[in-house]
């Protein structure tokens, strides 16, 4: 009996320590789900002899929640633009200065001085895209370029709509539809937004991130979606058309960054440098179906990525709007609206 207990204690302490001893060759990546090209990871592993673990999240906020409580153990995260701004402000990111690394010259100059990381001291571009919606053109045959389809849908789309379960995406779309500004603290306008959203919800079937699945399984005929997801869905359901609403839409960029206190800082820096190579960027785009921000990656990307309507915006479309994080009081108001919508 005593020896059993002894062995038990040994086993438990071993499992605790195995986690803390960070082997020189590890890297822990925390990225959006289904967003990392496994071949690209393999390439990195072989190049540097590093063992990579990959875990997934489905929203910026989920990632932040996990990371904020400290001791998450992750080295690399891939936040969206506004989330980078928040994390920099909160001191959550390591100032690894990619602008001094050897591959920095590959970064497209128009993505260097961005509102969330001027001069790129914390992060580098990963993928960028737009958030709109995509709709089956055989179900709805009219003009797709209007947000009215989300908030005041015609009969054939009622009850066949999926919205992203993302506070910012839904609220910003609503604000654009009502032609009110973003980061809005005007209470009268927000009240109107609140009422409008609640009314519109009756026409939505689901509110879920699993956009591709819902579209390809025909659970819904219209879904709020990121452009790359729309493109991937179109593969299995060719009638889908991606919309560029005349009321305007959000542009976003996901960026690779290193967490402060990352257990494998040196490997993380190697990874950042690696991700600035055109080949790595091209491989990512091939998997996720979005544009990246690295020059020269086109020759590694699939042909269709350079011509698809989801990636290449048509001439008359309004410019995408990159929305910076709003003041705390605005976010609180938004949260109230969001909770009210979801109850």
């Amino acid at each position: 009996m005593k020896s059993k207990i002894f062995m038990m204690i040994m086993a438990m302490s071993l499992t605790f320590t195995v986690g803390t001893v960070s082997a020189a060759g590890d890297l822990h990546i925390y990225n959006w789900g289904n967003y990392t090209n496994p071949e690209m990871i393999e390439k990195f592993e072989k190049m540097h002899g590093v063992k990579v673990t990959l875990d997934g999240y489905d929203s910026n906020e989920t990632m932040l929640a996990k990371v904020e409580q400290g001791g998450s153990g992750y080295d690399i995260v891939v936040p969206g633009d506004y989330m980078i701004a928040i994390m920099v402000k909160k001191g959550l990111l390591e100032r690894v200065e990619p602008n001094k690394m050897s591959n920095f010259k590959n970064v497209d100059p128009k993505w260097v001085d961005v509102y969330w990381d001027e001069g790129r001291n914390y992060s580098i571009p990963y993928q960028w895209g737009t958030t709109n919606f995509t709709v089956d053109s055989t179900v709805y045959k009219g003009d797709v370029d209007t947000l009215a389809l989300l908030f005041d849908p015609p009969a054939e789309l009622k009850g066949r709509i999926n919205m992203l379960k993302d506070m910012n995406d839904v609220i910003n779309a609503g604000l654009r539809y009502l032609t009110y500004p973003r980061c809005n603290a005007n209470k009268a306008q927000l009240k109107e937004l609140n009422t409008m959203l609640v009314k519109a919800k009756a026409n939505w079937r689901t509110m879920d991130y699993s956009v591709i699945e819902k579209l390809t399984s025909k659970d819904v005929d219209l879904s709020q979606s990121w452009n790359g997801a729309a493109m991937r869905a179109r593969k299995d359901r060719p009638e889908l058309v991606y919309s560029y609403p005349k009321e305007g839409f959000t542009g976003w960029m996901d960026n690779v960054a290193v967490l402060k206190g990352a257990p494998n800082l040196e490997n993380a820096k190697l990874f950042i440098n690696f991700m600035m190579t055109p080949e790595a960027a091209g491989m990512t785009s091939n998997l996720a179906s979005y544009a990246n921000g690295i020059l020269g990656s086109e020759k590694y990307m699939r042909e269709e990525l350079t011509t698809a309507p989801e990636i290449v915006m048509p001439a008359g479309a309004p410019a995408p709007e990159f929305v910076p994080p709003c003041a705390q009081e605005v976010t609180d108001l938004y949260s109230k609206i969001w909770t009210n919508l979801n109850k």
Partner: protein
Amino acid sequence: MSDQPSANIQLSSSAVAEEKRLRNTRLGLLAPGILTIFCIGIMPLSIVLVYSFLEPGDFGGVSWVLSFDAYVQLLFEEDIFDETLSFTTDYLQIFLRSVSLGLFTTIACLLVGFPTAYFIATQPPARRNAWLFLITIPFWTNLLIRTYAMLLILRDQGIINLALIEIGLIDRAIPLLYTDFAVCLGLVYAYLPFMVLPIFASLEKLDFRLVEASYDLYATRFKVLKRIIIPLAKPGIAAGCILVLIPSLGAFITPALLGGGKSLMIGNLIELQFGQARNWPFGSAIALVLMVLVMLSLMTYLRYGTTRKGAPGHG
């Protein structure tokens, strides 16, 4: 442990020492298990209690400032637009929905589970084991997978709709998925074995001579069921109800998958607070209210579902 029943008062010192040794052995054997559960099960609950009286930290965690905001938020809403506190039923609605769903699920499980348990309990022993085996297997498969399979069956392009269209009963698919019905079905499906097994355990010990006696007295089959069998199975029924109700109250993955994400259950609400909404105190407060509901159910169970000695009837 070979323990000799000691009915007499032991006066000799060796007997006292024996008693002491017995107690130490008991303590030694119980301690590790109790300690583990205490540390990982019970103590954290008290931390949740403490957290519910704090204020949320920026972007997650808590800041150590005493505040009743979390509890106030359950019942009162600061109106977005003019900052007056008004009574709100938002969260009460969510609680109500979860409780009704939990109760519906329990009742549905009972209606289907009791006959099933009875049937199996009254089979000859060899067949009985086979049936038990059959009923148990789905229990031991991953709930997530089974829920996903249910999704596949219920969706518009799923098996049920396709079959109905093939037969010609309907033209267009009936939206079965993403409804309260789907969620209820998913929960019943998940927890049915939890109802069947305790009732079976109770019924197995049933002395059918009582049944025979009532038939001798010309009772109808239904009356026998109502007056004899069900009351005797009460401990099992009560245990089954509790084993279904408690998880159903806190379920959130099944409702999220099958419900479409449009309406929140208590579990979803709690998850939201620890994820996107980043309001840990509020999440803790909700969790505690849920615990109170559970405690109430447990007390009801203990009062009505156990034998007078306080031990659950089915052991």
